[in-house]
């Protein structure tokens, strides 16, 4: 198996099943359509990783933004109780339109909860840890095109621009077709990275935006990414739109940098092995980075040695005596 074939095969293990992705989109679109029929709603759009096609499996939730008409809610947008009011208003609309028992548009929502920034709508049994939810976020459009989002706990409205990130990801993808698939790969990689605490998936996505090249093959691009990310994670990972500040202030920056450095070392060796025509060794090195789901090289037809189970012999490459002055 060649390197490209191996990446293709590995990608299939990372990607969510197409039918499940389609179902998630249908459920999201149901909310968009239903809420857009309300007289005080001016637009609805999907947000989150599904809207950027960078979602990791399994898809448990999707995000929908409901942009309201400020003339219909003149008190919204100011700090105070209006933040919770807006979320309660959205919740009321969802229940009226989509409640399982008496929804006027469809009967899908079994339960709703008002969270800090969104109304979490359960389409499955809320007790089920795998329950699928739609997060409905109320918003007001500002003059500069960004949004104001209610924040219940702090009783205030905060600026955000999720469409900026959607646009940035789409732009990168237009330039280089491997971008979105590799973001999913990196989000998967983070789950086993040896760091203290968790790594938010958005951290990986923004680092990919900042560090992934827009050309070349996947091997070279990952080598570049890991090298650059090992440095840039020290600088903090910030909202690309410049509105929401640092994405995960409690991130283990040093630990993640070390993990990136280790991956960069292996990726560099994998690229060098591939350039020397040693595909098997390259595959083994990529497998060290991404785990056993990355395809291993085919086993040799006959054991190369009577002693089985020994690691592959990696010989150092001699330097050519071709002096240049």
């Amino acid at each position, binding site marked *: 198996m060649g390197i490209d074939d191996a990446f293709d095969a590995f990608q299939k293990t990372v990607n969510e099943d197409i039918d499940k992705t389609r179902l998630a989109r249908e459920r999201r679109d149901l909310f968009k359509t239903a809420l857009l029929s309300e007289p005080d709603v001016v637009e609805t759009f999907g947000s989150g990783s599904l809207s950027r096609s960078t979602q990791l499996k399994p898809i448990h939730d999707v995000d929908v933004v409901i942009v309201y008409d400020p003339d219909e809610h003149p008190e919204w947008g100011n700090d105070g109780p209006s933040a919770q009011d807006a979320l309660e208003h959205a919740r009321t609309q969802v229940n009226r339109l989509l409640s399982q028992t008496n929804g006027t548009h469809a009967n899908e929502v079994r339960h709703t909860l008002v969270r800090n920034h969104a109304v979490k709508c359960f389409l499955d049994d809320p007790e089920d840890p795998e329950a699928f939810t739609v997060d409905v976020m109320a918003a007001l459009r500002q003059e500069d095109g960004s949004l104001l989002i209610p924040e219940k706990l702090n009783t205030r409205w905060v600026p955000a621009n999720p469409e900026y990130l959607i646009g940035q990801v789409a732009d990168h993808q237009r330039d280089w077709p491997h971008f979105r698939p590799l973001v999913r790969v990196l989000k998967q990689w983070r789950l086993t990275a040896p760091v203290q605490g968790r790594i938010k998936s958005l951290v990986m996505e923004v680092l990919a935006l900042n560090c992934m090249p827009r050309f070349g093959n996947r091997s070279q691009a990952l080598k*570049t990414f*890991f*090298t*650059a990310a090992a440095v*840039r994670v020290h600088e903090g990972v910030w909202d690309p739109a410049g509105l929401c500040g640092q994405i995960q202030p409690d991130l283990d920056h*040093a630990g993640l940098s070390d993990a990136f450095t280790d991956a*960069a*070392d292996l*990726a*560099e060796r994998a690229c060098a092995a591939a350039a020397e025509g040693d595909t098997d060794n390259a595959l083994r090195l990529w497998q060290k980075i991404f785990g056993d789901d990355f395809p291993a090289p085919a086993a040799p037809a006959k054991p190369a040695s009577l002693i089985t189970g020994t690691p592959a012999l990696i010989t150092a490459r001699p330097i050519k005596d071709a002096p240049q002055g």
Partner: protein
Amino acid sequence: MLILIPQSAAAIMRSSGPWGRLSLRINHPERFAVVRGLSERGDGIFPVEPPPEHRLLGSYPPVSTGWWCRVHADLHLMWLALSARRGMLMKLDAFKAAVPNGYKAPGDPGYWAITHAPGLKDAYPEHNLPDLVAWHVTREGAQPISVSVEPEATGICQLKDHWPVHELQNTRIMLIGAGSIGSATAHALAGYGIGHLTLVDPDRLDWHNLVRHTSARRHIGRSKVTALAEDLAALRPDTTVTPWALDVIEHADQIRALLADTHLVVCTADGVAPRRVTGHLARRAGLTAVLACVLQDGALGEILRLRPWPQHGCLTCRRQSLAQAGGLDPEPALDAGYGTGTRHRPMTAVGSDLHLVAQLAAKTAVATILERAGHPDQRLPGEHALLGLRRQPDWAPPFDLGHTAELRWLPATPPISGCPTCEAP
């Protein structure tokens, strides 16, 4: 003999035809010439020279001394064969037969000829023959002459397939200190293809600087940054240089504003205070600073990379760590408060040792930029380099280098609690 063919002249011979007159500027003692003008057929010669500042052999008079003409590809194959053997001539009849238009019979002194053979790649794809070659044509025959055709690109873009030229051309570095180490650092940074250099130094070039500085005697009395900018413009035109005759301490506000448009800072200034101020300004701007100097009167070269990262201490914290470990003894006359002490000790090191430190400083700066851009082959082994220049015994660790030219890299040390530079304002 070597004949240089400027690109403009080559373009005319490649696109016009079939023959014309040739004017050269010739340096007979050094046996080379440059094409100065051409004609089409028997018309008047028109100049093909670049502007005077880039003109070759500008002090030599132009001489109408030959011809150029379009020829069969076979003639250039013969040129290659004859060139391989010293003193070989081609018979005049054979030369004449290969020139379908514009052949001129030579008089007593002979003449120089440049021949253009189109379609060589198709005719002889295996030989990589030049399409423009030169001859000295006399009554005895035609002798092959070496030519050098100016290529389309002569700058850093020649290396674009082997070196990340694009990234570095889009990089802006501020260099604070344009003295002995600084001037050589500027040349090295430009050599790496850095697209823009901002030079900061308030001093003028003086007589005593000549022994170590890269600028020549003709610049004495001028601002060091202006002289350096002029030298670099002539030598490395791919690097744009902005000179500022400013003092990093006195004009810190102006420097701070300039840092907004900077990717990395290199400091080669003398003394403790300017280095501290540079490190502080860079950290506040979120930029990496690379500090280069010599210690012990030039016996030891030192490069410090100060990254604006939470785990990496500033210059003061790093120095304090070394002092606490017994490795470094602060110089009381230099390490004084503002307005007291002396600014720096007079330089006693030899110029080339300082230039060696400068090269390492430039490499550190460029490697820092490239690692951040994702080039694993540019990762450095540490944050603090020590280079033996005139090693002496019994220096305290980590300065206890065993040999001259030994290079030791050390990690960063963390910020010290309460540091006004490392902690957020």
